[in-house]
């Protein structure tokens, strides 16, 4: 029996903004979990992402700040140019360490630290994207006993990121966007549907 989920982490790059604009509006006000998002964005551009995503969502959307505690029902975005990590005491930490997979923020960095902090109480979601960042981190979440969800590659604008996760055996659930929203609502309500379990954890 899995532990109750305490947080959701989501990563993606090309095509993931559109995917989030399907998933986030499907989550109700008062959603029981914090959601932490890393999207690869062009560096150096002011990020209007919080207002774009917040405009369509019942949840409050903001950039995560260093040492900030997580609250349920809030969507936290990684700031451009900074890695976003989760500490064991479940506060955020930022870093300007070197990019991972040419990306800062990197999805792997968020996922690995969150897997370490939350163990099996974590839900990881990897969306559309054009590189392999996030696959390894999602695998770590699965190894730690968390629930892992990958956007079905045939529904992704850019399949390489979900495909990399499938190759690693990181996915417990492979779903389209509407089904991802449904599963997140179920997990927030304490329900754990059995995984579609196409992939077996290896290594």
């Amino acid at each position, binding site marked *: 029996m899995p532990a109750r989920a305490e947080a959701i982490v989501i990563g993606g790059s090309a095509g993931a903004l559109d995917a989030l604009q399907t998933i986030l509006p499907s989550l109700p006000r008062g959603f029981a979990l914090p959601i932490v998002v890393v999207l690869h964005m062009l560096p150096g551009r002011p990020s209007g992402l919080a207002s774009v995503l917040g405009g369509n969502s019942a949840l409050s959307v903001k950039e995560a700040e260093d040492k900030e505690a997580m609250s349920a029902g809030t969507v936290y975005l990684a700031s451009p140019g900074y*890695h976003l990590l989760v500490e064991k005491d479940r506060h955020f*930490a930022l870093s*300007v*360490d070197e990019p991972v997979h040419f990306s800062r923020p990197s999805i792997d960095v968020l996922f690995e630290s969150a897997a370490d902090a939350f163990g099996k109480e974590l839900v990881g979601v990897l969306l559309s994207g054009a590189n392999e960042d996030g696959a390894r981190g999602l695998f770590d979440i699965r190894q730690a006993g968390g629930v892992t969800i990958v956007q079905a590659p045939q529904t992704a604008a850019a399949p390489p990121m979900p495909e990399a996760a499938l190759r690693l055996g990181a996915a417990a659930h492979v779903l389209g966007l509407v089904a991802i929203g449904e599963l997140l609502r179920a997990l927030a309500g304490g329900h754990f549907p059995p995984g579609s379990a196409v992939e077996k954890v290896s290594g």
Partner: protein
Amino acid sequence: MDAQVTPTPFADVELAHFLDALFERYHYDFRRYAGASLKRRVASALVHFGEDELPTFERRVLEDPAAFAELLRFLTVQVSDLFRDPPYFRAVRERVVPVLATYPSLKIWVAGCATGEEAYSLAILLAEEGLLARTQIYATDIHPESLRTAAAGVYALERFARFSENYLQAGGRASLSDYYTADYSAAVLDGSLRKAILFADHSLATDSVFAEMQFISCRNVLIYFDRDLQNHALGVLESSLCRRGFLGLGLKESLRFTTHANAFREFAPDERLYQRL
């Protein structure tokens, strides 16, 4: 790809033991650094050194100061740019400099200067505003190799296209090329800038106040500390500032979650410039 997949190679208790041992042996204190990124850095050091297990690596580092010196690079080094985050330097120029100009002499501290880019950026800015001649800049770090790089003032030429772009966005009044001499692959910053900066070893974790400053710039340093160490370091910074002195932080850092928020007012909130009350 599967070969890269390894579980976290060490337990928290092994990491704590390792950090204790480093402090005992070498007096570098990483025990109150923010855990998540420190863990990543130690893990990548293990890969670099070809070690599988932290306890084995610990014995090697304790026996071999050269290995420790190499490890320090993984634990400390930050790469920065000249005029990184141009809006910060623009705000320093337009809002802080007019106040600094009222002092007969100035002490400015770049705390956690890494390889020196920020200290040189401030030196250039102060030169253009006519203040450099009466300013002593202190630039400190815990990493000896970074301090040597910083004091040399030599950077790869390929980085200067971005540096120049930053400089102009930061409100530079001339051309960045006025401040360096280049050969095929590297550029050396002007001697007048290097003379204005004293590079020195100082730890915000274990050392204390050494002078009274009008302005301290400490950017993207505190994010690597846990909350206790952040508060401790901010105590050192606060005690090092004169009344109405300025503190500049990284663009994603703030005093909000610290015990020192009430000692400062927000001076340029977006650029994270604070003024001591």
